[in-house]
């Protein structure tokens, strides 16, 4: 099986790097909600994707989750 994003060999749909990035994107969401008071999931993903500090794999995950 190949990673949905980068094509690396993997046993699930994401390689270990993108799986780690996905877990970090999910973990960041409640922190953003707390910081802004309220933020929609899709807005959060758009902002993560645009933010210059976001890592490349995390950006790719945000893109994938945004669909």
């Amino acid at each position: 099986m190949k990673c949905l994003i980068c094509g690396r060999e993997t046993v699930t749909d994401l390689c270990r790097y993108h799986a780690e990035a996905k877990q970090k994107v999910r973990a960041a969401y409640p922190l953003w909600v707390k910081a802004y008071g309220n933020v929609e999931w899709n807005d959060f993903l758009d902002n993560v994707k645009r933010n210059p500090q976001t890592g490349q794999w995390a950006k790719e995950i945000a893109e994938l989750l945004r669909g």
Partner: protein
Amino acid sequence: MSSGYTLVICEKPDAARRVSDALSEGESRNEQVEGTTVFRFDRKGEEFVVCAAQGHLYGVSDPARERTVYPVFDVEWYSSDLVDENSTTAARRILTIRKLASGASKFVNACDFDVEGETIGYNLLKYACGGKEKIALRATFSTLTKEDLVKAFDDLKPQAGQGLGLAGRARHAIDFIWGVNLSRALSQSALGSGHRYRTISVGRVQGPTLGFLVEKEREIKTFVPVPYWKASGTFERDGVRLIAGYAKDRVETRESAEKIREECLRREAVAAAMRRFTVQVGPPVPFNIGDLQKEAYRAFGYPPSRTLQIAERLYLEALISYPRTGGQRLPPSINYRGIIQGLGRITEYSANAAELLKEELKPVQGAKSDAAHPAIHPTGEKPKRPLQAPESAVFDLVVRRFLAAFGPSARRELAEATLAVGEHEFKLAGGRTVFPGWMKYYGRYAGYKDIGVPAVSEGDRFRVVGVALDEKFEQRPLRYNQSSLLEKMEREGIGTKATRADIIATIVGRGYVSAESMEVTDLGLSVVETMAQYAPSIISTELTREIEDKLEAVEGGSGDQAELLRETLRSIVEQLAELRTNEETIGREIDSAVTASMTKSFELGKCPFCRTGNLRVIRSKATKKRFVGCSNYSSGCRASAPLPQKGTLRTAPKPCELCSWPIVYVMGGRRPWRLCVNPNCPGKRKP
């Protein structure tokens, strides 16, 4: 009295010339022996012949020397030209030393007094001189000045440095066995999956070092920033405005940040008493090689390997002491006063030197000591030729650090004031140097800036003019640069002061990281991930550090190098078995990473013509010459450009600002050459 002469073996030709000049009072005669220059002279009624190696003249290899075969546990020492194609003069120099040894009755090892120098000398005495390693005397010195060399030869020691030699030979054997087996296992795995041969190396120290880089890369690429706010207030009193930061550096939520603004605006701030206090800042400790490399990177941006090369040149010209030292201590035996008097004869340092010479000379000392060498220091000799800019920069840094070590502590006055608005506090902070002390000698490298703080008295009342809320995001971690990676290796206790810079250069050279940004490539990731999965000890810091500790015990005479070699073999055998079992899977993983990294290395960037294709380096089948072409050629894009035919190409991160074509660095000469590949770039037009 024996009839033969004393044969002196030095590590490099420049060192041999200095030794003969110092001992012969300039009366030595140059001779050619088997095409190599040697120096002959009489000293105190004895005849001396001084010859030189050129670094290592012997190297470790396996007798079969077949790069597809592993495991390899049987290693032997060979003339370097047989194991390293770049070593072109080894055979000739060995022949010279062999011939000279036949007429010698006494032997002196005058190579650099450290593990590598001892190994070079030991091997030459053992193999080229026919088993003279046990009877040879040792000359030990830390600078190539006449004074130090004469002292060393008046006090020759039997058997000094034997432990260093044994440890050095053990280190070479272990590193060879380790590197050759694992690298061949990986290279063969990739070859087995159909890719053409490419060396994929994993050295004993290289593995964990690459592991540090990959760990950081994962942190960076999976990083998700979290927002926070910074608040600052603008205050006014008697028409004077000042800005102060909120006492709490980071406000976690927008609601809290807005509450601060709400509760402060249109209110009055009251100043608490300004706190002024003086702190003493002691001088920085004398340089060991790691400190010098870090400081040269900070001050001039030189990679560690370059600083080491420059420092070695300065050492061979007797301008500074032996640079490959771990010591941060300056013993009185180096003659502080003599060195500073010498520096006083160099215009740039004369005023500083004169000032220091008025006082008692007592340098600050660092915590690390090196049994063989003091901290890096100038010798007090004046350069006999105009130094090139990088040499001059490193020399200046070494001199100023040395002078600074004798300076008194500096004093800085720090000031802090608090402006309170109800329960909220804003801070003003600054500082200035009130007594420069050692900073005067260290000059621009001291790096302390003065930041003024407006005078504020207790009870002063200010109008709050505004409160600014700045939305911020956490910063992703920084990649290692060559200097911080060297520091990490030092902290983790892997590698030696002599090898760390070379290991970093190898990691770059193998294409595991990009040279410009140190970003780990797919190949680097793949090598570490493969090792982590199938042979985790190879990239673990623990095993490498454990071996380093045992090698140090051998150096000190308390360890057994034969037992250490056996232990290392056992651990390699276990790892290799695991790699062999999974050869096919490993091969597939590495193969796809190699392909990805090769594709990337030939892609230069987006095509500015068609805007959808990529410009690539293509080699013409007809002329065999390389040029730039677009990946959309088959769809009609005719963007193309010539390229220099020599040198490695590396793509710059950003395209040309004038024409949007890619920029490449052409490596191969002394310095990389920056080139916009567009032959019609406006930047290339003559005015």
